[in-house]
């Protein structure tokens, strides 16, 4: 039972492997995908209260990991439910696509439970390699030819980040003599301020900064977001980031004893990410690219919570990444639906959306205002909690700069909302939306509002989950 979610995902992946051997119809693939994702979600919820160690102490199942597994499964289910079918992927390759997505899911789910350095490495690579293959898997029928370039960039940057991480892990092994996170947690405070230990921790963090898209490990973001298919980008934008935050919470609580050096670096990365992301997003014309840069800025915000080294800060970061994943999924739901042939959407392609698809326009507006940090949505409450946490630790300058960034960001979110609501359709056609898409949009909007207005339950759950790893 401890391993049930992982086995379920593995089973689903094998199911899709079998499907790739045949010639299944469109409908079969979609039904299998949605059913598989629903079963996986059910399995993760069932195992929410499990606890125990597996694989000789390399793998720990506790509330922290199980909560993340539920979130990852839920996000994957939402991605599978996107209404348009995989219009950006070649018809023949769709079973393979789902196979790789589920394998990546398996990797991410194993990642949040790994407490041994090697286990972390294996899980990270499992999830990453599957996505490296998914990125170039995009049809050229819409005239887009740079998915291969995007894939190469993602691969090269990813492998380099993993290289950094492995190097750091080797130093830590050399210093502490163990690869288990528990053992390292006992020994690291003693050697905390040795330069070798500091460098090692920072290099390990680098591997996860890459996944979360923190400056200066963000360079892959705009090209991959723009080059990959819309559904792939939706997955990359929401799911691996959650796993990256989980691991970062584990690792920064280890690094908390290393004092000023690590704190200063985290602060610099946070500020640089926020400014770089927001300023670059101001000039974007492609919608996915803009969302990519905004993701870099939001990652900077999440670092604000992590660098407090306190339980409340970690809980705020966790709350924020859940909200962020929801907001992003809502945006990508609209993008996938409006881009009927799987093409890239410019911001001007959204004009008059309020007439063409009112519910999608509402969803996109709520999601964008939430990303901008306007009350009463989850984006505001999350940002607010992160700022409170940071100011409690007396980082006044950091908080002021973060607040200024909110003001910068609003401009580009507002441009998209303006296109959606205030302009005419300029001859663009109506957008088909089925019952499923509409209900999913409304559910996402409701959750964004509810999480924003009544965050106590979510933050309480986050705190309970994080307490179990200390």
């Amino acid at each position, binding site marked *: 039972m401890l391993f049930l979610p992982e086995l379920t995902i593995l089973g689903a992946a094998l199911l899709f492997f079998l499907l790739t051997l045949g010639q299944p119809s469109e409908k079969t693939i979609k039904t299998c995908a949605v059913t598989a994702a629903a079963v996986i979600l059910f399995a993760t919820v069932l195992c929410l209260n499990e606890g125990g160690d597996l694989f000789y102490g390399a793998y720990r199942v506790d509330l922290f990991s199980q909560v993340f597994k539920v979130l990852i499964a839920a996000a994957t289910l939402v991605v599978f439910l996107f209404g348009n079918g995989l219009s950006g992927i070649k018809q023949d390759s769709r079973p393979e696509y789902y196979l790789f997505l589920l394998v990546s899911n398996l990797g991410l789910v194993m990642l949040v439970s790994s407490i041994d350095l090697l286990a972390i490495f294996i899980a990270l690579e499992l999830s990453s390699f599957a996505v490296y293959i998914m990125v170039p898997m995009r049809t050229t029928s819409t005239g887009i030819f740079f998915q291969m370039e995007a894939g190469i960039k993602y691969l090269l940057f990813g492998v380099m980040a993993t290289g950094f991480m492995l190097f750091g892990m080797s130093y830590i092994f050399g210093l502490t003599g163990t690869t288990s996170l528990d053992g390292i947690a006992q020994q690291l405070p003693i050697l905390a301020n040795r330069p070798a230990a500091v460098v090692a921790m920072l290099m390990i963090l680098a591997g996860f900064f890459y996944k979360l898209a923190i400056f200066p490990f963000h360079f892959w973001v705009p090209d991959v977001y723009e080059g990959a298919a819309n559904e792939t980008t939706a997955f990359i934008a929401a799911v691996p980031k959650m796993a990256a935050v989980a691991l970062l919470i584990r690792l920064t609580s280890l690094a908390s004893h290393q004092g000023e050096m690590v704190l200063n670096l985290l602060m610099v990365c946070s500020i640089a990410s926020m400014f770089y992301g927001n300023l670059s997003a101001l000039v974007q014309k492609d919608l996915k690219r803009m969302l990519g840069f905004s993701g870099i800025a939001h990652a900077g915000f999440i670092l604000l919570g992590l660098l407090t080294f306190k339980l*409340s800060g970690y809980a705020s970061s966790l709350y924020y990444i859940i909200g962020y994943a929801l907001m992003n999924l809502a945006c990508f739901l609209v993008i996938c639906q409006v881009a009927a042939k799987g093409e890239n959407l410019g911001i001007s392609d959204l004009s008059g959306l309020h007439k063409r698809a009112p519910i999608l326009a509402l969803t996109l507006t709520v999601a964008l205002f939430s990303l901008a940090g306007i009350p009463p949505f989850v984006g505001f409450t999350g940002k607010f909690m992160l700022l409170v946490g940071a*100011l409690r630790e007396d980082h*006044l300058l950091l908080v002021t700069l973060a607040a200024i960034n*909110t003001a910068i960001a609003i401009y580009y979110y507002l441009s998209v909302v*303006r296109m959606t609501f205030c302009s005419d359709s300029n001859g663009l056609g109506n957008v088909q939306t089925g019952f499923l898409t509409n209900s999913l949009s409304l559910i996402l909007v409701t959750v964004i509002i509810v999480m924003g207005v009544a965050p106590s339950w979510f933050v309480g759950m986050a*705190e309970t989950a994080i307490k179990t790893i200390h």
Partner: protein
Amino acid sequence: MDQLLLNQGFPLLSTLIFLPLAGSLLLFVVRDPHFARYWTLAVTSLVALLSLWLLPGFDRDTAAFQFAEYHRWIEPLNIAYVIGVDGISILLILLTTLIMPFCVLASWTYIKDRVPAFMICMLIMETAMIGVFVALDFVLFYILWEAMLIPMYFLIGIWGGPRKIYASVKFFLYTLAGSILLLVAIIWLYTANGYSFFIPDMMWKGYPFTAQILLFIAFFLAFAIKVPMFPFHTWLPAAHVEAPTAGSVILASILLKMGTYGFLRFALPITPDATTTLMPYVLWLSIAGIIYGGLTALAQQDMKKLIAYSSVGHMGFVTLGIFVLNIDGIEGAILQMINHGITTGALFLCVGMIYERTHSRELSSATGIGQYMPVFVTLIGFFSLSSMAFPGTNSFVGEFMILAGTFRHDVPLALAAIPGAVLAAAYMLRMLQKIVWGGTNNPDQSWLTDLNSREIITLAPFLFFVFWIGLGPQPFLAMMHSSVVNLLDQFHVYQQAITAAGMY
């Protein structure tokens, strides 16, 4: 918690806040414009009638927050849902609730497409506006303060005039940028007050002087942009001109008051030392606003822009009254807030009625309509008199009290403010003369129809209040008296305590 008089029985304030929001939910699924109009009129009228219920139960002799409600909200951060009304806010709440039905009436034929969406924006705005005036938890206040931006952005950006995109984006960005540092200030106050956001507990604490100055600057940026004070006023003409009539009325009558309310409720009690230190600068900035607003209004050819700049001038008088820190000044300022809401709201409604007929806001196309629209020019005549603070009208009482307070504080300051009153007369009379009589080469206005009954019903209550407050302001002043006296008493006590502690 002893600053609150907790509400027993029916939660009147919460109902006032959330009833418009509840009413707007139905409109999300409605497509019929007629139903949307009648439904919104019904909801806003109901809210207005309910708000009148506040009057009998309001105790004029106490400065505590009445009808107060306290509920735990976000436990991890100690954010509570605390609301309450005192003498300063009750008149503003009544202004908000009573103006809204007339805004809906004014939009009856003005808004032709996407009517349900328009009404949704209006109702959500009403929720946010009432909430801002009664919020006693800083996060609740901030949430409602920012929440106003979205519906106002849509009101201007969708149903606005030719430059609506420019105006709506400028409004949104300017106001948001100003409020951002307010957020940092709020969080700082939270950490300095034992991790609580409860506003009455934050008042009259002797924070370190540097901290007070920085807090005051943060408050000042947010509120001065909203008021708007010179030189942060540049968003106002654009927003007012491009907004639809109801949007302009809400903006002028209610949104501008939130800035001055913020100064009175937050800047003065929370940072009293900074207020006394920076007072001269704010006062002279107010004078600059009065003179600048008056001079620019004198040069306008666009009627709405003229009234917009007159708002800058009038609000300059209000901030002047607040920062002289005596009883006449502050009471005059609060009364003038209400007066400005009534008068300028009515003037925008009048200009909207001309616009519906001639489809132009230019003064040159509205000259000489007195011959053909006698009822209309009578009404606009009275409102213009009120705007220039003619004795007998409401603005005279307010402006007189403000000037009396200013004279008591500093004579040169008051002398500098007098030309503002003269300028107000100049630009209003210029506009009035052109509209009513014009010159020798007026355009042919014989095709104009005078006001219909709906329009008369919309304007009549404003006229009623112009004369009631003008000739018998005592009831209104009585409502705010205890709270203002308490504010000033606390201020003097605080100053004495600081001097005794030798901090000066």
